[in-house]
């Protein structure tokens, strides 16, 4: 297990370093922030001054060296736009995203497992066909479209929930509801498929022959084995949410890391972009490790 962890950490670290280098240099290609932050009629002097303050006049390699040096001291640099350390802004946004992703994924996982297992129990039955059909629709729905249709329906016309922002629990309902749909559809299909093949295996037939009731067969005997492929998909979906649900977050004005990322990219706030990438990459790495551990817990045959 230890050797496996080490290998995984090294592979991830290599990828992260490559990613950081690539992002650092490529993002500089998108233009000079000076034009964005100073008024059009700013004097040449003011422009030079701005560039000097933010170190934009140095050669690219010098800037990169400074970035790496600062990073070694866990200093992610200052945000140009917000005049605060980039890491602070990112961690604040990430805390919001983490809550949103965690609540959504818990709901998705519980409901998808229960409904998917029940659907697999009578393949081709009415419940199964309904579940399959709605999960397919869910998996095909563009989230930005669902989001604005939901706003018109539930916020504007019915007035049940606020349109955007945060503050009360009511603000969370629409973003969670919209983010819920696609992972739910995808995971439900995987649960169903995996459950169908598990239910037809020999040990389940043995249990049936011994007179075990239906519910314990599904939720005690079969579920544990059927979960293995499901966990992979849950991990993928959770990683997508941790990366920040950019579209949903910006439609609902949710101050998460996805919205922060797109804003910083458009505002050429490179320090924040890099810090956001590193924080989310670390989070996804930790989550993937947890999933591997979960594999080993669920299936004692898996040893790393």
């Amino acid at each position, binding site marked *: 297990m230890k050797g496996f962890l080490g290998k995984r950490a090294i592979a991830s670290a290599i990828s992260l370093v490559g990613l950081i280098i690539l992002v650092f240099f490529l993002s500089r290609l998108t233009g000079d922030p000076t034009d964005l932050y100073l008024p059009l009629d700013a004097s040449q002097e003011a422009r030079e001054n701005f560039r000097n303050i933010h170190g934009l006049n140095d050669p690219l390699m010098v800037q990169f060296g400074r970035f790496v040096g600062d990073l070694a001291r866990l200093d992610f640099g200052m945000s140009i736009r917000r005049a605060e350390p980039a890491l602070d802004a990112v961690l604040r946004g990430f805390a919001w995203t983490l809550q949103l992703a965690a609540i959504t994924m818990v709901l998705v996982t519980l409901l998808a497992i229960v409904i998917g297992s029940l659907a697999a129990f009578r393949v081709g039955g009415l419940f199964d066909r309904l579940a399959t059909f709605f999960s397919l629709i869910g998996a*095909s729905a563009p989230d*930005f479209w669902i989001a604005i249709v939901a706003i018109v329906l539930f916020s504007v016309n019915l007035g049940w929930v606020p349109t955007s922002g945060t503050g009360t629990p009511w603000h969370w309902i629409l973003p969670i509801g919209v983010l819920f749909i696609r992972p739910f559809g995808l995971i439900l299909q995987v649960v169903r498929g995996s459950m169908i093949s598990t239910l037809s295996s020999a040990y389940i037939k043995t249990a049936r022959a011994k007179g075990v009731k239906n519910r314990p067969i599904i939720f005690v005997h079969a579920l544990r084995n059927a979960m293995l492929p499901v966990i992979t998909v849950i991990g993928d979906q959770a990683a997508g949410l941790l990366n920040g649900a950019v579209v949903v977050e910006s439609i609902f004005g949710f101050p998460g890391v996805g919205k922060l990322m797109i804003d910083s990219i458009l505002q050429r706030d490179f320090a924040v972009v890099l810090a956001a990438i590193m924080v989310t990459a670390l989070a996804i790495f930790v989550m993937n490790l947890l999933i591997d551990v979960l594999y080993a817990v669920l299936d004692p045959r898996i040893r790393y």
Partner: protein
Amino acid sequence: MAATDTDAQPIADAPHPARRILAMLWRDKFAFAAALFLLLMVFCALFGPMLLEDAATRQNLRGRNAPPFDFSKPWLFWLGGDALGRPLLARIVVAAQNTLMVAAGAVASSLLIGGALGLIAGYTARLASQVIMRLADVIMSFPSLLLAVIVLYMLEPAVGNLIIVLAITRIPVYLRTSRAEVLEVRERMFVQAAQVMGASTRRIVFRHILPVIFPTLITIATLDFAFVMLAESSLSFLGIGIQPPEITWGLMVAQGRPYLTTAWWLSFWPGLAIILTTLSLNLLSNWMRTALDPVQRWRLELPRSRK
């Protein structure tokens, strides 16, 4: 060899492959409807701009945000008009071209590149494989929004460049799948037999391994087509994809957003077009998973049992 023919039932001639596929498609009514709908969309994409380009761009300020289902108007206005009085139905038909072309281009190129790299990574030495896999990790964790901004800022936001952005982000999907499949297939007996008989690496990879993993790749590509369409729509919706006056369905949803409370149909219909197309692709991909799998295919070929 001929001794197996002792049972009473003579084996009929195998039907023509195309007929066989059609029969299997007919067995799954959802997949059949999906295939029909996709054909219609492809038709719109191919001929829509030619036939309706004029109607789709002609402004008519008296028909601004014309409500849908007003059947006294010409049929192009049955889904309503947009903020400049252009008929939504015509615009959706015309936008099908860009929407489908971007998705098709991105899926085809990522399938080609990713599949080839996956074959190499699965079949060759460890070092090359390691390099390719780490590269895939980097691409996978590279934020696609940033990539889009970079490429579209340096080049220009044209259809071709959008295809490049989306293709790059989807390469790892095919790479990982084909590598995993190759790793499994190359241990099978027939590959070892080919190796023992002295087949060249190229022959083994292309004649023996590729045909086995190809159905999986095609099934994934169908599913991925839907995903890429959604990704393109999101980019266009955020304003960093296709730029007006070019149109895609995602851009149409974005353009209708300011009028949501007064004219819901501006965003609703293009969104519905996206949903129906991705839903059809999902249904078709589900069917393919069965139809292309020799072990599962019988479910679509046996006569329906009477329950």
